[in-house]
């Protein structure tokens, strides 16, 4: 966290995925009929509801599980999820909203599952060299994908490193993503052009 000031890289969060549970059974047909911005996929058994305000797409199952994608920050994701819950309430379902702290992970109702961020290094990277130096963690298959896939098990984060220096990071929360970028920076710096 402290090393961030030295590096001064801007990490842009492009997508935050979160899971949300309404503790009640939802009638998808009703939602599909009465919602103005929903897509009903009967063959897979889910409803897609798109919100405009925080630009969010929510996938709703009849069991009450809801997955929200498309938010650009954790707060936004939470905000969108609450909005969604409110609209479901208006439709007549007994949705339980809990007023808990965002960072309280014991809140079983709402959880941020995945965060996708993009970061740009000011230099290019030699991928074959990088792969050789980071053997177990990095895997590079030019026939399949032009980037090196680097996994950090401790953070459960995956980084895709391109030769142009742009790095795509996915992780369970924003902190993990930030620390992943910091961890990878020295390695990438070694194999720079």
């Amino acid at each position, binding site marked *: 966290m402290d090393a961030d000031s030295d590096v001064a890289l801007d990490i842009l969060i492009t997508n935050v995925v979160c899971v949300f549970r309404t503790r009640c059974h939802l009638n998808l047909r009703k939602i599909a009929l009465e919602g*103005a911005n929903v897509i009903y996929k009967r063959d897979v058994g889910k409803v897609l509801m798109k919100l405009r*305000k925080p630009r969010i797409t929510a996938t709703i199952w009849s069991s009450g599980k809801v997955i929200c994608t498309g938010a650009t920050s954790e707060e936004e994701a939470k*905000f969108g999820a609450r909005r969604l819950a409110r609209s479901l309430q208006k439709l007549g379902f007994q949705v339980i909203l809990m007023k808990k702290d965002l960072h309280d992970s014991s809140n079983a109702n709402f959880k941020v599952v995945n965060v996708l961020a993009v970061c740009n290094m000011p230099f290019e990277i030699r991928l074959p060299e990088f792969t050789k130096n980071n053997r177990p963690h990095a895997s590079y298959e030019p026939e399949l994908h*032009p980037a090196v896939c680097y996994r950090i098990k401790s953070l459960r984060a995956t980084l895709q490193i391109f030769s142009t220096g742009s790095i795509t990071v996915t992780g369970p929360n924003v902190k993990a993503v930030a620390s992943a970028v910091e961890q990878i920076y020295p390695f990438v710096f070694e194999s720079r052009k």
Partner: protein
Amino acid sequence: MPGGRVCGACGCAEIEVDAARGDAVCTGCGSVLEDNIIVSEVQFVENSGGGSSAVGQFVSLDGAGKTPTLGGGFHANLGKESRAKTLQNGKRQIHHLGNQLQLNQHCLDTAFNFFKMAVSKHLTRGRKRTHVIAACLYLVCRTEGTPHMLLDLSDLLQVNVYVLGKTFLVLARELCINAPAIDPCLYIPRFAHMLEFGDKNHEVSMTALRLLQRMKRDWMHTGRRPSGLCGAALLVAARMHDFRRTVKEVIRVVKVCESTLRKRLTEFQDTPTSQLTIDEFMKIDLEEECDPPSFTAGQKKLKIQQLEKALSKKLEDFEGEISSYQDEIESELENSRPKAKGVFANFTKDDSIEDNASSIFGEEEAEDEELEAAANHLNKDFYDELNEKDRGKRNEDGECRNGSETLVRPPALESLLGPLPTAASLGITESIKECISTKDQEPGENTGDGELDLSGIDDNEIDRYILNEAEAQIKAELWMKENADYLKEQKEKEARIAKEKELGIYKEHKPKKSAKKREPIQASTAGEAIEKMLEQKKISSKINYNVLRDLNSKGSNTPKKEDDSTDDSTNTKKLSRRKSIASRNIANPVNSVGKRLRPLISTQFAKKAATEEVTFPNTQAEASDVEKPAAVLVESGPVAYNPDEEVEEEEVEEDEDHCMSALQLMGGN
């Protein structure tokens, strides 16, 4: 059993083992300790020519294969058989595929080793065996450095390359094998051969290699498919040596797309090396290195953006002057033109003002523009009008950039949300207009409010999300139309099921359920628990469960047996051993029982009596064999067992004669 050391009867340690007869006899008391040991003598047989050859069969290293196992059908052996079968099948498939790829024997053996490792790590579970085998082969190709591409394998198997690639990655990771990176230079001889350069093959290859090395230095090769680079290098090399190879021919050999090849060629064109003549290229190597092409493309974009910014800044400088003129002109225009409907007049005013001060009202403008875009999509006539007005104003301002941007933004939204059904068809034009107007009035409230639970969420807005009845109906119709195919399928399926039910053939194809969840057994004593477990599990069909139940419920016999069995722990052990020997000696039907009973015997004392009962009725079937163990028991068995035996035999007879008698006994008691 210490047959080789100490005699059980007399205790002397002199035991003679005769390998030929297969006996172990005590020289002190003369008792036979072992009988029918497996003889490991080598026997010779005379040939027709007079020579002698050893008797025996060659057994393959990989497993039982075709030779029947001794005693056959054991569960332990069955598991092994299956594994051997898997490996055999795998080997066969590897050889089949490998021969198509012209891999040598060493490679195939290595691949088979990989496959064995994969099987032992359970990597074949849940994956198609062909995929795993292809991955093993490709791994070998990589480690050996043969010029085989994953594409070749996928061609042979008609499988998607990425699927194979995924399996390959998993395999490499699990087996901790680091496949060295592909060098495009490896492919050149192969492709050159396919392109048929005749005598000059070698020269062309060398030229192509040099080109490739140059490309590597110029950063064209990172993140690119090696085959594409090879193709480009070979094409240029061929041309350099006066061979006419068209792009199509090269593509067929190299298996990339035409556009990819062209792109590589243009990238190479951009490098300074392309400016050299052929002779110069062969002699000189330029020192400088280039940036990778994607990097340069990115840089170009950045430059364009910077230019735009600079331009806008300059324009802003002039805006101060122009704005005054702008206001005048605007007012005149409004007076002269027909007024737009209420909603969009707001828009036009807002837009023109906010253009210049975009940073402050950034969010609102974004919102309005989004809404504008959405509304535009739904009401295209309004949009056109608006556009004209905007264009008129913008032209006067001199900011053509903005005009193009607004044109760009609405379509972008369309692409985001996909093809929306138009408002007219949905009949919700009115409600959308309302929605937009209310939003317009209260944009400030909703932004930034996220801390409190419900206060930030505008109920009215959410109400808009809910359609009323008429709208709901229309929407339902629309959905029905769209998903007509799926609904048809469902109906057909139901009809089919109904028909089958009538005919009585109906099979419910339910998804496979995992192992049945059994309720935990609740019993007061160990005996009860075992009984219940046996009932539930139904281990063997040869055990008459009724009798088992009966045994424990009957008061007289069981306590005696249980006492006897618990008194002499050594005796029971001997008995169990003897039983295991007996069961080993006897043919198939008994063995399944014997094997299953072995764990029972070893762990549960209480059931021992019952199981002993059980083996005896079964062993009675094989009369002669049983005599031996029975005889063994009688001879050297503990004295305590004799009365038990008699009793058991009685019971056994009863059981044999009338199976029902046991039931009757149960019923009677």
